[in-house]
């Protein structure tokens, strides 16, 4: 077991160092893909074992994998792999048009691997301190990735990202310290007071007064990274200004990881507070997030910015779902997490190619994609429809469950959600339609677009909408048990 963990974490870590040296070579993208593939394989093996033998520890108790983070590491590794596939052609084009120098290529590839490493670390570690460190380093890596073009806009975005998330994460650290304070009495003042499994074991005895304050700090802290309104201000900029693969992983993975972190702490807080307050907070955040995000959509001019707002909206939905609690809503939340990662990253892939074709990110200047390259165009259209909750894609399944559950738990919240969904639908579809259809001036690209990832993702999303395989269902079920306790 230990070796497997070691492999999973070592490949990206060493990979990032390696890439720091050779990241500018001609074959670097392929190496990058290879590394991600290696990680993927190891992760799949690991999660298979988890599925068969149940939760397990490594290196003492400092690493821990159960079906919840097993699910997420699989997702992370998978999307990481497909994104690296996508970035092969994308980054080559970027270099041809001179936006990427060889130095930047090195930074990009190395940071990409580091980013994957930190996320896997954050998911796998059992130590909430290490979890914090991982998130911090993830922030740093992401900052470098976002600022990689060195344009004014990119710098500003990265700066805001750094300051806001830095401050946020410091608050999270304070929250972590508070939890440590609370746990000291039961677990003694040693590393053991930092281990989530131990905390989970004693969560009933943890002091509610401390835990509530701690949870607030953690929620605000990690919530900033999740992009909950009103802590979301950095997100749109960061997504819009970085390279598209980065936007894909930020949207598809980092948000999930942050949400995962909050969930872990919610479990603890619920256990100690016993008054469902954390759930209520999440519901509140979720609703506000959905509303604000959807209403922000219509004023966007930059396509990546627009889709990042849609990510905010979906994070809001998931938060809402997890806030509702209960097996069905949680199941829906997890499903939504999975499908959203798949679909949203697919969308960013197509958007990336579209922007390169049109030579701009301004929606108004992108036209007639289905004519110049049908696959990209239809990929974008289908992806957006999927993200808008059109059946038979998985997003619809999860939204169906969320809405119907909320209709039982919180009837008054449902119309708000539907309003949000309606507005989002109107806006995004009109934008996408104007981009995909109509006459065009775009030109074909030097490197063939990598559309395999897009269709793999969309295909999976489609499958999840029509048919959820039993073992996956089982997997989700175990994860739900962990969250609902």
């Amino acid at each position, binding site marked *: 077991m230990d070796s497997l963990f070691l492999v999973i974490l070592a490949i990206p870590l060493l990979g990032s160092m390696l890439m720091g040296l050779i990241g500018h070579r001609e074959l670097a993208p392929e190496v990058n893909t290879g590394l991600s593939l290696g990680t993927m394989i190891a992760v799949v093996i690991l999660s298979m074992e988890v599925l068969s033998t149940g939760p397990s520890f490594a290196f003492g108790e400092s690493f821990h994998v159960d079906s919840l983070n097993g699910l997420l590491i699989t997702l992370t590794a998978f999307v990481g792999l497909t994104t690296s596939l996508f970035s092969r052609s994308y980054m080559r084009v970027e270099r041809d048009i001179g936006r990427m120098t060889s130095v930047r290529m090195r930074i990009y590839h190395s940071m990409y691997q580091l980013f994957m490493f930190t996320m896997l670390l954050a998911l796998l570690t059992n130590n909430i301190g290490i979890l*914090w*460190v991982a998130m*911090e380093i993830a922030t740093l890596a992401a900052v470098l990735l976002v600022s990689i073009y060195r344009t004014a806009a990119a710098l500003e975005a990265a700066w805001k990202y750094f300051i806001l998330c830095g401050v946020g994460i410091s*608050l999270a650290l304070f929250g972590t310290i508070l939890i440590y304070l609370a746990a000291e009495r039961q677990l003694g*003042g040693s590393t053991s007071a930092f281990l989530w499994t131990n905390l989970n074991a004693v969560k009933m005895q943890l002091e509610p007064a*401390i835990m509530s304050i701690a949870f607030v700090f953690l929620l605000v802290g990690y919530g900033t990274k999740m992009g909950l309104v009103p802590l979301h201000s950095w997100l749109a900029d960061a997504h819009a200004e970085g390279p598209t693969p980065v936007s894909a992983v930020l949207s598809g993975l980092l948000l999930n990881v942050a949400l995962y972190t909050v969930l872990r702490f919610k479990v603890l807080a619920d256990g100690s507070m016993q008054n469902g307050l954390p759930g209520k907070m999440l519901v509140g955040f979720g609703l506000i997030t959905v509303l604000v995000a959807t209403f922000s959509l219509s004023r966007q001019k930059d396509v990546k910015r627009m889709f990042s707002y849609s990510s905010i909206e979906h994070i809001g939905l998931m938060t809402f779902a997890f806030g509702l609690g209960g097996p069905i809503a949680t199941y829906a939340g997890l499903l939504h997490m999975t499908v959203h990662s798949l679909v949203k990253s697919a969308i960013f892939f197509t958007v990336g190619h579209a922007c390169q074709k049109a030579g701009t990110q301004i929606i108004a200047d992108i036209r007639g994609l289905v004519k110049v390259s049908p696959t990209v165009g239809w990929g974008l259209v289908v992806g957006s429809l999927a993200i808008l909750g059109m059946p038979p894609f998985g997003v619809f399944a999860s939204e169906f469950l969320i809405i119907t559950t909320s209709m039982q738990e919180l009837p008054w919240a449902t119309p708000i959600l539907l309003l949000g969904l309606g507005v989002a639908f109107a806006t995004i579809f009109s934008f996408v339609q104007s981009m995909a259809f109509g006459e065009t001036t775009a030109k074909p690209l030097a490197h063939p677009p990598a559309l395999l990832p897009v269709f793999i993702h969309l295909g999976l999303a489609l499958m999840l909408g029509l048919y959820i395989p039993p073992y996956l269902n089982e997997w989700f079920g175990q994860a739900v048990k962990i969250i609902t306790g």
Partner: protein
Amino acid sequence: MPNFALQLLNLLAAIMLLITFAMLSQRRPLSLNRLFTLHGVVLVLSSLLVAYVTGNSHLYYSAGLTLAIKVVLIPWIIHKVIIRLKAESDVDTLINVPTTMLIGIVLVIIAFNLAMPIAQLSTSITSGILGIALACILLSFMMILIRSKAMPQVIGFLTMENGLFFAATAATSGMPMIVELGVALSVVGGTLILGVFMFHIREQYDDLDIDHLENRKED
């Protein structure tokens, strides 16, 4: 824990709070940096004291680490950057100083009220310390919030880290070593990146004025 040591720790905490207030009102980057160094020194002292009192050996390492990073390395980097970028000139705050002070006091009160219940419940040595730590955090938050230049924001950010460290060491009598290592590491990394950043910002617009960084918005 001997009463005397406790008073000493409280004293250090108070000094820390004082320094934070001073930083809040300080306009000149270089002296801000000096104050930050001082802040670090107090932090080191306090963790040494806690280490001595609790006999918690790894706190000595952490104190050494803090000394190395927060008192020597980072201030040096910042100083270099300031000199290199000729950013010594005064930095005007968005809100005038007296108001800032008033808000600061309010924050302190809030912090204490928040910390009171926790401190009572906590088994560890301290009562007011946690409150002061929280106050430092909120104050430095405030500092980032009201500064219009990049450099003071960075310093404010680091001060916040100090506050957290103080909370970690003094209030909980030391977190596990590994965590502290990680935290310290990330702080260094952050500072380095920020240093690099400064130059880029400087390249873009020939000063470190944050106003330049306000163009990405919904119009």
